[in-house]
């Protein structure tokens, strides 16, 4: 009787409330953490020299917003991130797809990618400073190198995983190289390529923070570093919060972009 109905697929109302509950938990957990942190700081359970209360961090944040310091540094970092993504991601996209489509291109570049990929990108920073100097070049280069590898690897994999018959049909219609690239390989590999960009921009964000700590006069990394030098712990936390917020917003943004340009991919 009714046990049968319960054992079957859950009623839509039940699954909806599950989703709502998940969403509430997702918002509640960071809020709860902040509340506990605030309380712990107020009652001196933690050393406020290292872990200042969230309320005092927010006060410093508002102060820095008002002076324009935070906005300027954030925009500088974002600009470097965007340029680096473009400069690293563009060639990576073309090379990755070419590697997926042509086994000779793959034979030439695969060993190079495999050999250089494991080098910690942060270890390249001194070299980048040497080549590009202390200016914008070295910062943008660091992001570019961080974005390049995940995109090239994912683009190659994405093309190699394309259902074979799509390429066959292209060949049957005598599709040109450009048509094969533009109408089959790129859209076919796009879901995997998007994953590459998501990973790459995440790595780029890490690298830009590191690069700005050394030999920079602006940016969030520079801001965190000067906060350390002047022992302005709250300011340091503002920088960290800002990077966390950028990471979160970029993830949401990339998911939205993916939804628009890869509409056939379902979760």
């Amino acid at each position, binding site marked *: 009787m009714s046990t049968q109905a319960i054992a079957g697929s859950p009623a839509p109302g039940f699954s909806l409330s599950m989703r709502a509950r998940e969403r509430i938990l997702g918002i509640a957990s960071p809020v709860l953490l902040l509340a506990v942190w605030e309380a712990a700081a107020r009652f001196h359970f933690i050393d406020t020299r290292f872990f200042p209360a969230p309320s005092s961090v927010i006060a410093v944040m508002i102060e820095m917003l008002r002076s324009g310091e935070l906005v300027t540094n954030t925009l500088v970092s974002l600009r470097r991130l965007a340029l680096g993504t473009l400069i690293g991601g563009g060639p990576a996209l073309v090379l990755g797809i070419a590697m*997926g489509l042509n086994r000779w291109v*793959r034979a030439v570049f695969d060993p190079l990618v495999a050999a250089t990929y494991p080098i910690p990108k942060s270890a390249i920073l001194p070299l980048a400073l040497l080549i590009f100097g202390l200016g914008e070049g070295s910062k943008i280069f660091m992001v570019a190198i961080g974005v390049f590898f995940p995109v090239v690897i994912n683009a190659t994999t994405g093309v*190699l995983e394309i259902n*074979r018959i799509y390429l066959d*049909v292209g060949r*049957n*219609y005598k599709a040109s190289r450009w048509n094969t690239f533009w109408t089959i390989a790129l859209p076919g590999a796009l879901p995997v390529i998007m994953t590459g960009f998501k990973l790459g921009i995440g790595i780029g964000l890490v690298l830009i923070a590191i690069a700005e700590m050394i030999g920079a006069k602006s940016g969030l990394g520079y801001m965190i570093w000067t906060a350390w030098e002047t022992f302005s712990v709250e300011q340091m936390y503002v920088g960290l919060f800002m990077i966390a917020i950028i990471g979160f917003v970029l993830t949401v943004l990339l998911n939205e972009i993916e939804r628009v340009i890869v509409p056939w991919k379902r979760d």
Partner: protein
Amino acid sequence: MEVLVVGAGVVGLAVARAAALAGHGVTIAEITGGIANGVSSRNSEVIHAGLYYPTDTLRARLCVRGRRMLYDFCASHGVGHRKCGKLVVATNDAELAKVETIMAQAERNGVEGVEMIGGNAARAMEAELSCIGALWSPETGIIDSHGFMLALWGELEDRGGMIAFETPVERMTYKAPHWHVQFGGRDSGVMPFDAVVNAAGLGAQALARRIEGYPAGKVPRLVLGKGNYFGFAGRPAFSRLIYPTPIDGGLGVHVTLDLAGRMRFGPDVEWITEENYAVDPRRADSFYARIRTYWPGLPDGSLVPDYCGIRPKLSGQGESQADFMIAGPQAHGLPHLVNLFGIESPGLTSSLALAEDVVAYLKD
């Protein structure tokens, strides 16, 4: 034990996954740069019910069992599929008699839900259809075969298995207790394995000949049965798969649908001697007449060349259809070696059941 599977098509992937689930260490050696670059990606993507195949053949048993396993797998792994059903249509009395024998065969094979329906009942299901009677098979469906293979690959890697791409097998020698396998390609070298499964599809016979001590007389001949598909430029006229009464050599040019709802026709049978994947647009001419026997409404100029596949057949033109061949140690005398020959249709449907049987062989 350490198992080598040669070929990352649907059969190789299914065997490798089953072996990994059984606790074996598994490596797939694949000659191309990706999975499913041969027979596995060039077919109708139909989940066959198991109607036609003679009783007690591997094709009959594995297709029916494999189909049930495949639907379960799709449901549990989120692989795109649709149980759309299929009509085998008869357009005259001679064909009707033939469809009735298929019906009897389907029942002997244990296919669920099959029934004979009249012409009006068939037209009530598919208004554009012209026929005097039909066999209705509700268990037939379509599958996102590429998604299925990606799921198999994922599960294989979850269990610690791996695929070595662009890795041809050049030679194999058995020196107790191991198979010493010589790989070519960029990372060439010799590696030992406890057991080997040959799931190389169109290359299975050539690989068997490179196995030292493998009796040459036990390598069956390979017959290439190319099948061409033509796409339909327009709104699909049917929502179920429509098959004509089978002709000698194949199931006849039928209506297949993909999960996007696109309709295409094929495959025909073209006997070839060398692998090639070009579709000759002139072959469309013979398609029009054959399709119009059951769909008179097919407009002129609506068929466009699509893709083609090659069936790794063991029987040629005018011969009776050969069964799948699972050549284990009893067949060829070499231990821990299974060769799979002639795995054509319904290989995709049978893959999961076939994999179970092959893994059972490995224990010997």
